[in-house]
């Protein structure tokens, strides 16, 4: 289903299944992400986008199927190996998920401090440099997350995600909760920093404007399966009525909103 280029995929999911009790969330997800490309997975609320992302990150363990990062099977890894794989990752959380007990700069430098790559003085310098990369001045470094607006928190979250120069960055609904202009600013930043870091990007969103802007390739998740995947340019003539309904945001169509979980 996902014809990718001849190079080995950076991330490869095949037949990934996950159920919570009787509720099947992922029902055999197949998805390849090539090095350096930006894939956006779209889909309605509750279709399993977050579960898919958390399975790759190792926060959730899939019931069956395989997830490979750089060709290495990660689903059955031990804790220390898992940590080594996670070092390749950066992640921007939906609500930014900043640590509210730490000042902004310690949030940004958290990963590199945890790995003891640098001392605290150097870490702060790096943090300030990363903050400027996402358009924040150095005065912000000593503030606490609660003192920032939603858009600024997203920027700090982005700075934290790129601080350790990750090979892969995940974006979980990067524009949710922002006004349209701030959303576009964040989209531009995502494109810019991903290119600067040279990272592979995997995002999940239901914001089509965001998807069109940051994606090279789009995949649609519906009922636990990828039902369509293709270059972002093809999304308007996908010949798939599910995709059509979703990208135009129509209430009528093959997709029926589940009112009850």
């Amino acid at each position, binding site marked *: 289903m996902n014809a990718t280029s001849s190079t080995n995929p950076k991330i490869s999911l095949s037949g990934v299944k996950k159920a919570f009790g009787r509720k099947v969330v992922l029902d055999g997800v197949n998805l390849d992400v090539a090095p350096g490309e930006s894939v956006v997975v779209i889909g309605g609320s509750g279709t399993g986008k977050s579960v898919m992302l958390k399975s790759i*990150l190792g926060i959730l363990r899939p019931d069956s199927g395989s997830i490979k990062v750089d060709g290495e099977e990660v689903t059955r890894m031990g804790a220390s190996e898992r940590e080594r794989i*996670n*070092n390749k990752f950066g*992640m921007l959380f939906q*609500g930014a*998920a900043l*640590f509210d007990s730490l000042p902004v700069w310690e949030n940004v430098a*958290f990963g590199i401090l*945890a790995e003891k790559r640098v001392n605290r003085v150097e870490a702060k310098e790096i943090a300030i440099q990363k903050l400027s990369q996402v358009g924040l001045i150095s005065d912000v470094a000593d503030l606490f997350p609660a003192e920032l607006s939603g858009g600024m928190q997203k920027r700090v979250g982005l700075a934290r995600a790129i601080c350790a120069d990750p090979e892969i960055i995940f974006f979980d609904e990067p524009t949710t909760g922002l006004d349209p202009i701030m959303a576009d600013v964040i989209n531009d930043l995502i494109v810019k920093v991903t290119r600067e870091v040279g990272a592979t990007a995997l995002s999940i969103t239901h914001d089509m404007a965001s998807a069109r802007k940051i994606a090279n390739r789009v995949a649609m998740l519906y009922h636990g399966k990828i039902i369509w995947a293709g270059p972002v340019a093809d999304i308007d003539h996908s010949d798939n009525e599910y995709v059509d309904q979703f990208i135009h945001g129509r209430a009528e169509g093959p997709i029926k909103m589940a009112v009850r979980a």
Partner: protein
Amino acid sequence: MNPLAGLQKIGSVFIAFLEAAGKLTTFMVSGISHAVRPPFYPRIILHQMMDIGYYSLPVVGLTAVFAGMVLALQSYTGFARFSAEGAIANVVVLSITRELGPVLAGLMVAGRIGASLAAEIGTMRVTEQIDALTTLSTNPMKYLVAPRLIAGITMFPLLVLVADIIGVFGGYMVAVYKLGFNPSNYLQNTWNFLTFEDVTSGLVKAAVFGFIVTLMGCYHGYNSRGGAQGVGTATTNAVVSACILILSFDYILTEMFFAK
């Protein structure tokens, strides 16, 4: 009506109980194993020690002083009937060091620390901060749970030692200034009846209670689900379960120490 429905209900409650017990045990073992293996987080451990030890002092001190005072007063009204007033110093010091110091301090700090741990960690859970730790090469069990367990186990005995002294002092105040005891006699009675074991048994209890309070706070916070309401439930569960466990372990430990 299916006649087996009632049986099924009992079975499912029992299975749920076993599941919860297993989950808690796994959490506890993981927490302890992370607490004894490096890397450690000295900054966080110190911060937690301040929070649990130093900032709990006013609450624990007030509890202890009033417990000591009321103990002296009550035992006086009782013992005066048998002309056994001389035993008051003895009753006060033994009750405080063996029982009331650890238990009252434990219960008060369960309310203060257990609730705040559950709320803090629970909020971190529902705002994905715990997931964020994982993506930043940091094990949340090691970063969040282990330092709090270490701080709980080490600071509770110190708190209880302070509570013992303040409690005995409370009893002394009432005995000397209200009931007209001779100060030096009272102090001598206090000292003569006190054995090393009375104090150490209380301190061992305190360490166990410290472990219980921090474990319950971390466990319920860590497993909280579903936004503000989930955090509220976690906080309630942390305090209630810590209090019940403190009282039941108090009996078990007393039995172990003193039952001949």
